[in-house]
């Protein structure tokens, strides 16, 4: 027999792999015999035939059963695992409760955060063609370094796009939200809505319940109203009566209802109660036809991102190109931003997109994941620490022939049973907590049980949490040495101890990190709310009167001042604390003709400075004794840009008006603290452009409001008005920050609580383990405090290490967070010290409860039991 008489290896190996073990031996033998007999004729042919035979053997009946775990685990075994898991859980109730409590709290809080994140991410995603809609933004250079980005675009830019940009399919103009008084019956209501071009209804998915979306906004006298408006104006039978009905607009015009749309839900960033044709608004506001004036938002659709980019490249300098030589030429650029991204990415830094709500979404997501991980770690630590109780069981199982694999399966299964149970309870808990949570975040979230994604998510959570928390126990317990585990003498695995300590450090590191984050975020919030914004915000009201009769405002003001509860009144072209009306036409002595500056202009009356409680740094405020109509006050930022040593008396012109500077006012914030203070010119040139009346009241606000109400009703009987407190407006502008602050506060609390649960479990284990030692020490005369200190040292050390590790990370991350704000609090060391102290103190409490119990217990008890 030649040396090459063995059959080819690869097919043989294949055969051995797939063949049923019962059949393998004789099949292989048959093949070998056959091969030998064929070998006498031709070796090549024998090999080929061997391969062919093996391939033909690959058929049902020969192939072994490949059912997963078939050989190791079966139904009986699984039911045994479940039985043992249940018995263990019931026997060590304390441990089980700690485990489950951590998991339930962790999962339910993550669940709520996920709902919030999901809701935020789904905003504006309901538009059918949503991913083809883009919006134009305008970058305005205000000084060498500052760029302000706005969504108000000069209308001619939209006209130009419609005429000359073939890649753009549709363009929609959308105005800012405006108050209009509507009345169908006797009563008037003031509602916010928008003027939009007819393409709007086609581009966005706001379906009309009645009316034709293609023609609804074609007629200048048309109005489309929301379902809720229709219901309030026309009653229950609006579907039959609303269409074609007349509505009084501002008690002056008649408009005709041409459609009713479903109210934009909370997942739409565009909100409105009525829509009217943009042309109606443009006809009354001819200034909109100038390239120098921003007005509408401009949305357009184009098929692909490439085309959108092409549009963006081409449109960049259109404003500059069309305003060359004009006296209001500014350094302005148009940029393109995806509409659906805008809600989450709405911050512009130096003209480029830089985060927005997405930052908070990320923070919350990361925190939710952290909490889940902390809960899993609890499970791992408690299970492995208590593993001694299971050593005999593991030993016996091994002796009976259990393989490591099946033991791992057992512990994984146990963890998954736990996590599934915890998830179920967590869903109920989350469902019960949802009303409070909604109240907290001012949203209307619900758990969408009807949607498969919810179930996929829940099952996914249960499995992942189970696998994660079961991984380490499964690995550790299944690897035990049989003989030692049966003797009941488990050598303490050093690596397990290290691992457990590492996990505790990790937990407390994250908790400390979160506490630092909480402290910094709330410090920044307090800073923003309490910072001197350059005006006296107490007892200051902003009144908005929806009237065209501006000539009555002088008399109105006089009437208001007659009340003893009102200190002073001033009329403004906008609310000074959220202001954005600007010009690029400002000119002054020595201005570099090559740089364009966008300067805000505020039109007020002579009482402005006094009413707002602002402080003049140089010069004087407006005064009735002088003719101040061409005299201007500027703020510090403007003074710096203009660069005069003494700006008083210097010439300044804008909008073609020449005048001189009479004073410099201390900087005040016109926008929130994300934004730098912009240069500003204050003028009292044309008081008729007043939309907002600022009222400074005396201490008794209630009386003042009554007085305001009386006077307003007497002067403008037909008109609705609204008033807001300036400090409330300020607070509202930090709504997101306040919400995130509250959430992160709560989450940090939860994370430290869960960590402490774990620590509590571990320390009670230590107390149990070392009960004899404690007994002996007590007999020898040790004091309770000494024993507690001795026992807790082990864990206290870990918490301190965790703090030390967490601080640099937190410093780095919080520095990054604060850089989002132009005006920000300083990161001082006390934040880190406080956070460290909080974790150490809270951790120490958790440890000492059990250890104290152990230390005060009677030594006789622990020493006698043998």
């Amino acid at each position, binding site marked *: 027999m030649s040396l090459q008489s063995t059959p080819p290896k690869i097919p043989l190996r294949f055969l051995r792999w797939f063949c049923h073990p019962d059949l393998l031996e004789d099949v292989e033998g048959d093949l070998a*015999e056959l091969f030998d007999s064929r070998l006498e004729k031709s070796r090549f042919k024998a090999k080929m035939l061997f391969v062919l035979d093996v391939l033909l*053997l690959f058929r049902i009946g020969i192939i072994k059963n490949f059912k997963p775990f078939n050989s190791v685990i079966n139904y009986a075994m699984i039911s045994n695992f479940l039985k043992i898991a249940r018995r263990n859980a019931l026997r060590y109730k304390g441990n089980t409760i700690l485990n489950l409590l951590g998991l339930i709290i962790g999962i339910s809080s993550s669940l709520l955060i996920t709902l919030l994140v999901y809701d935020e991410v789904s905003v504006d995603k309901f538009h059918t063609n949503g991913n083809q809609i883009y919006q134009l933004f305008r970058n305005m250079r205000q000084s060498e370094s500052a760029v302000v980005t706005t969504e108000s675009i000069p209308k001619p830019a939209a006209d130009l796009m419609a005429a000359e940009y073939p890649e753009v399919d549709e363009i929609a103009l959308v105005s800012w939200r405006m108050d209009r008084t509507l009345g169908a019956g006797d009563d008037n209501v003031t509602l916010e809505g928008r003027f939009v071009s007819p393409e709007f209804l086609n581009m966005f998915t706001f379906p009309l319940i009645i009316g034709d979306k293609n023609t609804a906004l074609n007629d200048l006298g048309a109005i489309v109203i929301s379902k809720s408006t229709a219901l309030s104006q026309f009653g229950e039978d609006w579907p039959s009566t609303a269409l074609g009905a007349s509505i009084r607009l501002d008690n002056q015009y008649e408009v005709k209802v041409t459609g009713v749309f479903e109210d934009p839900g909370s997942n739409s960033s565009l909100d409105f109660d009525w829509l009217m044709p943009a042309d109606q608004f443009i006809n009354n506001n001819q200034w909109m036809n100038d390239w120098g004036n921003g007005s509408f938002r401009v949305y357009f659709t184009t098929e692909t991102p490439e085309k959108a980019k092409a549009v963006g490249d081409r449109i960049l300098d259109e404003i500059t190109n069309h305003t060359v030589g004009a006296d209001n030429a500014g350094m302005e650029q148009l940029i393109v931003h995806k509409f659906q991204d805008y809600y989450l990415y709405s911050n512009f830094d130096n003209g480029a997109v830089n985060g927005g709500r997405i930052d908070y979404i990320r923070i919350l997501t990361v925190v939710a994941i952290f909490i889940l991980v902390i809960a899993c770690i609890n499970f791992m630590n408690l299970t492995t620490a208590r593993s001694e109780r299971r050593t005999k069981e593991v030993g016996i199982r091994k002796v009976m022939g259990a393989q490591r694999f099946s033991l791992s399966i057992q512990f994984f299964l146990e963890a998954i049973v736990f996590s599934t149970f915890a998830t179920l309870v967590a869903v109920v808990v989350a469902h019960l907590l949802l009303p409070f949570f909604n109240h907290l975040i001012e949203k209307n979230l619900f758990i969408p049980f009807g949607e498969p994604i919810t179930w996929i998510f829940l099952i996914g959570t249960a499995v992942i949490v189970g696998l994660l928390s079961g991984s380490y126990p499964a690995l550790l317990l299944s690897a035990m040495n049989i003989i030692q585990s049966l003797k009941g003498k488990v050598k303490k695995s050093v690596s397990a101890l290290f691992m457990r300590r590492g996990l505790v450090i990790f937990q407390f590191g994250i908790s400390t990190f979160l506490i630092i984050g909480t402290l910094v975020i709330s410090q920044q919030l307090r800073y923003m709310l309490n910072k001197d914004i350059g005006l006296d915000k107490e007892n200051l009201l902003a009144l908005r009167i929806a009237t065209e009769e501006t000539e009555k405002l002088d008399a109105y003001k006089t009437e208001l001042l007659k009340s003893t509860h009102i200190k002073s009144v001033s009329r403004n072209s906008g609310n000074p604390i959220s202001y954005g009306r600007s010009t690029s036409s400002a000119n002054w002595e020595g201005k570099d003709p090559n740089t364009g500056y966008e300067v805000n202009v505020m039109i007020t009356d002579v009482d402005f400075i006094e009413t707002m409680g602002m402080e003049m740094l140089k010069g004087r405020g407006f005064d009735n004794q002088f003719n101040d109509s061409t005299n201007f006050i500027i703020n510090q930022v403007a003074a710096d840009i203009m660069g005069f040593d003494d700006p008083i008396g210097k010439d300044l012109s804008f909008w073609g008006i020449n005048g001189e500077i009479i004073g410099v006012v201390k900087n005040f914030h016109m926008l929130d603290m994300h934004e730098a203070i912009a240069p500003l010119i204050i003028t009292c040139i044309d008081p008729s452009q007043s939309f907002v009346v600022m009222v400074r009241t005396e201490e008794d606000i209630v009386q003042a409001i009554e007085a305001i109400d009386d006077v307003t009703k007497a002067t403008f009987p037909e008109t609705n008005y609204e008033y807001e407190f300036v400090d409330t407006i300020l607070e509202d502008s930090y709504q997101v920050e306040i919400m995130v602050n509250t959430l992160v506060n709560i989450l940090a609390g939860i994370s430290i609580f869960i960590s402490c649960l774990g620590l509590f479990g571990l320390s009670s284990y230590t107390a149990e383990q070392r009960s004899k030692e404690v007994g002996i020490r007590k007999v020898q005369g040790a004091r309770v405090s000494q024993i507690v200190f001795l026992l807790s040292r082990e864990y206290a050390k870990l918490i301190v290490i965790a703090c030390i590790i967490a601080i640099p990370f937190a410093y780095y991350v919080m520095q990054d967070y604060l850089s989002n704000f132009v005006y920000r609090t300083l990161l001082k060391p006390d934040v880190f010290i406080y956070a460290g102290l909080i974790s150490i103190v809270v951790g120490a409490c958790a440890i000492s409860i059990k250890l104290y119990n152990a230390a005060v217990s009677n030594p006789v008890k622990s020493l006698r039991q043998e």
Partner: protein
Amino acid sequence: MGKYSIGEFEEVVLLTVAILYENAYGITIKEDIETRLKRKVSVGAMRTALNRLEKKGFLKSEFGEATAVRGGKRKRYFKVTKSGKEALEEVMEARKQLWDAIPAVAFDFKFG
């Protein structure tokens, strides 16, 4: 078909096992079928058939001694069981009944 369901190839294999009596294992069965019936039989097809017959209880098997020719693997010898014999008899019986039922003229091809 009664309680014994059996396919054509299975019948051939079962009969061959009976023919070979004490020497019925994989290769001999395969070769016997190939020489007697002049048809190609793959190891796979034959093994599946043997397996199926054994599951049905028509065959029983036991391992023989290991031989060097087979790479040290033992032969699995097959034997027809009592119910295997009954199955074969029933098939034959069924065929016979059918043959008997054919009218004489059916096979008279003279005027075909």
